[in-house]
């Protein structure tokens, strides 16, 4: 049986019995959820990915403490929350406006961020890539631009529109993506 066909509880039991390589399957199943969770809170994806690795390492070391009837994703996010707060504290001295603002938002909206993440089961997250591909061209460009490091004012110039309109377009794109993801998870 391939690792991706094994249920999570069995996987965790076998990992604890010494089949450590199976942990990479656990990582594979949860990485999009976790990277997305961290990438939402940190500006630089590279930093989010570094923290994601730290979270998986911590979870690996503490695996024995995870209750088998619990939600593994929620447990990972709990570790991640702690790592994010530690990260923000370590950056406090040289943090920019934006980073200080983000740190405060993450602290205040902790429960809402967790609630939003809880709604995203694995299939729904994977469907997001497909949903992005179905966006109208202009919205796709807006969604992609942040990833390419293009600033909003530069994007507004490129699309011959205004900065507020870019945020409006992104918001519209997000609405369509949510609808598409929900349809997919119900079909």
């Amino acid at each position: 049986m391939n690792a991706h066909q094994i249920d999570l509880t069995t996987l965790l039991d076998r990992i604890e019995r010494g089949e450590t390589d199976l942990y990479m399957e656990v990582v594979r199943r949860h990485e999009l959820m976790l990277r997305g969770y961290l990438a939402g809170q940190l500006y630089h994806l590279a930093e989010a990915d570094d923290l994601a690795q730290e979270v998986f390492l911590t979870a690996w070391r503490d695996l024995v403490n995870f209750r088998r009837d619990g939600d593994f994703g929620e447990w990972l996010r709990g570790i991640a929350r702690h790592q994010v707060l530690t990260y923000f504290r370590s950056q406090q001295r040289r943090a920019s406006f934006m980073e200080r603002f983000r740190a405060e938002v993450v602290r205040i909206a902790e429960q809402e961020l967790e609630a939003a993440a809880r709604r995203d089961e694995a299939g729904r997250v994977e469907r997001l890539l497909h949903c992005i591909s179905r966006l109208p061209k202009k919205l796709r460009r807006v969604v992609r631009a942040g990833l390419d490091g293009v600033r909003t004012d530069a994007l507004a110039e490129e699309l011959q529109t205004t900065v507020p309109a870019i945020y409006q377009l992104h918001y519209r794109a997000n609405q369509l993506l949510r609808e598409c993801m929900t349809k997919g998870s119900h079909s």
Partner: protein
Amino acid sequence: MNPDLQTFLRAWSGDSDICDTECGRLLQRLENDAAFRTECGEEIRLLGLIKAVQTPSPRWLDLRDALGLSSATPPEPEADDLARRVFHLVRNEPRKPANARWLTWRPLTAAAAGIVFGMFCTSMVFGFVVQSGVEGKTPLAVFQPSFEDAQMPITKGYPYALAHWGGDDARVVSAENGIRAKDGTFMLRLEAAPKGSPRFVYQVLDLASVPSSAKSEMREIEISASFAAVDAGASARYMLRAFAVSEAHEHLDASLFDHRGEAIASATKGLDVVPGSNGWKTVSLKIQVPPAARCLVLFFGVRTPNKTLPKAAHYLDDVQVSLIEPQPLNGLTLRTAARVGG
């Protein structure tokens, strides 16, 4: 769209002008308005997911080290993973194991992904299927790209002017510890740092040197550099970062680090090197530079994630920066062809 949500998203994305006047009020509303908190939480969550699903997975080198999997076949290259994810969606089948052979199915993957998803990932698909060499490259002047001046001073911290290197502990050396310069006689040694902290060297490029014919539109610039390590017994991450800024070089200083989120464009690329890898490793990245950019700030760095291993020096050589110029392709430029795909 709720105006406060829009303002919130602007501040969240790093618009410091907004933050100067609005961040305090937004935080207060966030504290007191549960519906607003939920709305912001949903947007933040989706923005994060959008980033995660559109980028390749990390290679989890530290984790693989901890699991004792270092000697196993390392995961496939970054782009492969993204293509695999797209291909997986095309076929609606379970993912392939991480060590699938990339070279055997890369063209098929690229073609299938391109056909089904059209414009969304067109640039990526072109990256796979178009032979290198279709793009023209015009080298841009880099100060001491191969560190051939053994007496070259290196500013501690941020370089105070153009035509300088600045950075953490670094010095120009000739061949040593079994490492020979990749290009010429000399190379730059990045001294070991405690606790695996990253070490960077920086250079500022004045974009006035970019050929004038290309100034009126978005320019694509490629940066590459080669790294080597004395002790390949530990994993390392080599990093390139580029920030395009609209300020003139004389107005840039170390505070750039605090305001790097305000760069008008930025790009980062990392290369994870597994223990046992020898020789020079070349990292390259491309950045789309808007017309308003006046300077490009380049960071070249290394990080050794395993904090428990003895620290060793790393070397940098053969830094290259080029302007990418699309060449005509059946009457269309390559960039135009990519847009037509959508």
